[in-house]
């Protein structure tokens, strides 16, 4: 979707502000918000693409007014409310008001290391050969789906070069909507900055995105 999360190249006032000796978390609630989000994925039954969509699918003024972990929290609440795992009156009451729904196994302390080590690899066996090969020019399609996509707006319609063929990977546009993994070939496609930003752009700059085959077309 075309949302405020898609920030590449958007005019934004002010410099990047690194924080010296930055702590991992800035408040106790951030620690807990991070941990419950991590722990809820399995019992909740959603995947990473559904999580991303739940975070980004909101009006720009909402997205931009929230801090990073506030967005995580809003996304988590939405995923749980949609599935009836919790209800709004329970959040307001600050306690459970009805029995739990049956869920997949709860994450235990003993299971944490294994869960993190396993991660969520996205590469899948290819069912057909890749359409494009390294060195080939391709155009990023000019698409504006209302649903989840990982093709940033700043490359749409522009011509780049396939740099690497990265294997066949779970396709977020399908996976986010519950339509299944629908694995697709994934490529690193790099663009000359002048193609993206015009002749006045910095010299000697190339920018790449990782793009699934359905995002690309032959030139």
């Amino acid at each position, binding site marked *: 979707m075309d949302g405020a999360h898609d920030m590449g190249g*958007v*005019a934004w006032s002010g410099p990047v502000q*690194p924080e010296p000796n930055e702590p991992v978390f800035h408040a106790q609630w951030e620690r807990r918000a991070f*941990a419950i989000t991590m722990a809820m994925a399995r019992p909740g039954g959603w995947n990473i693409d559904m999580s991303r969509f739940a975070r980004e699918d909101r009006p720009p003024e909402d997205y931009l007014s929230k801090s*990073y972990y506030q967005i995580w929290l809003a996304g988590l609440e939405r995923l749980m409310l949609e599935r009836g795992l919790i209800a709004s009156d329970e959040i307001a009451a600050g306690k459970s008001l009805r029995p739990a729904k049956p869920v997949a196994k709860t994450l235990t*302390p003993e299971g944490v290391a294994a869960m993190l080590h396993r991660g969520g690899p996205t590469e899948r066996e290819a069912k057909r050969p890749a359409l494009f090969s390294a060195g080939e020019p391709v155009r990023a399609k000019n698409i504006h789906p209302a649903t989840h996509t990982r093709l940033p707006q700043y490359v749409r319609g522009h011509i780049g070069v396939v740099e690497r063929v990265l294997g066949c*990977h779970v396709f977020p546009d399908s996976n986010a909507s519950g339509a299944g993994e629908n694995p697709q070939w994934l490529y690193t496609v790099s663009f000359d900055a002048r193609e993206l930003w015009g002749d006045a752009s910095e010299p000697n700059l*190339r920018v790449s995105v990782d793009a699934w085959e359905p995002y690309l077309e032959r030139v």
Partner: protein
Amino acid sequence: MSDHHHHDDHSELSETELRVRALETILTEKGYVDPAALDLLIETYETKVGPRNGARVVARAWADPAFRARLIRDATPAIAELGYAGRQGEHIVALENTPRLHNMVVCTLCSCYPWPVLGLPPVWYKSAPYRSKAVKDPRGVLRDFGFELPEGTDIRVWDSTAEIRYLVLPMRPAGTEGWTEERLAELVTRDSMIGTGLPKQPHEVA
């Protein structure tokens, strides 16, 4: 996002705090989460998984040419040799800086970052200024970080739009011949592995 301002508004902060507490209570009461597992997740990312892991990878690549070759060819198994793997680092690619080429990593769409080697991303990495500017004006970003690259250096920006995670392999500072991996690792900063900084010089860690 208002990442840089969230200390200012105390009423908003306490509202969020209450909401998180309410959620954790509800989820615990329903048996969806185990608070001891939450504690362990937090402890893991505050004390075990962080940029010191990546610094060890870079130091080994500087000290061991065979490891460096494996890292450039296929970083995920090479990094696993040091015991780092898993969540948000399932498919890692190492990007080698050279005197002619400087690599920088961003995620314009969210906050994708190689957790097993760098830990959780800093606030600036997730902020609107970095996510918007890195792909358009990376030299301006580097100036925000207080340095300039030599003129004529090519810049290559990698936007992490899929599940591939990128680790920059910075250039080994001069004057470190014969150093052990442990000493070399002290030179490797987090930002040098994102491409928004350079490694420390030998005199800075003497």
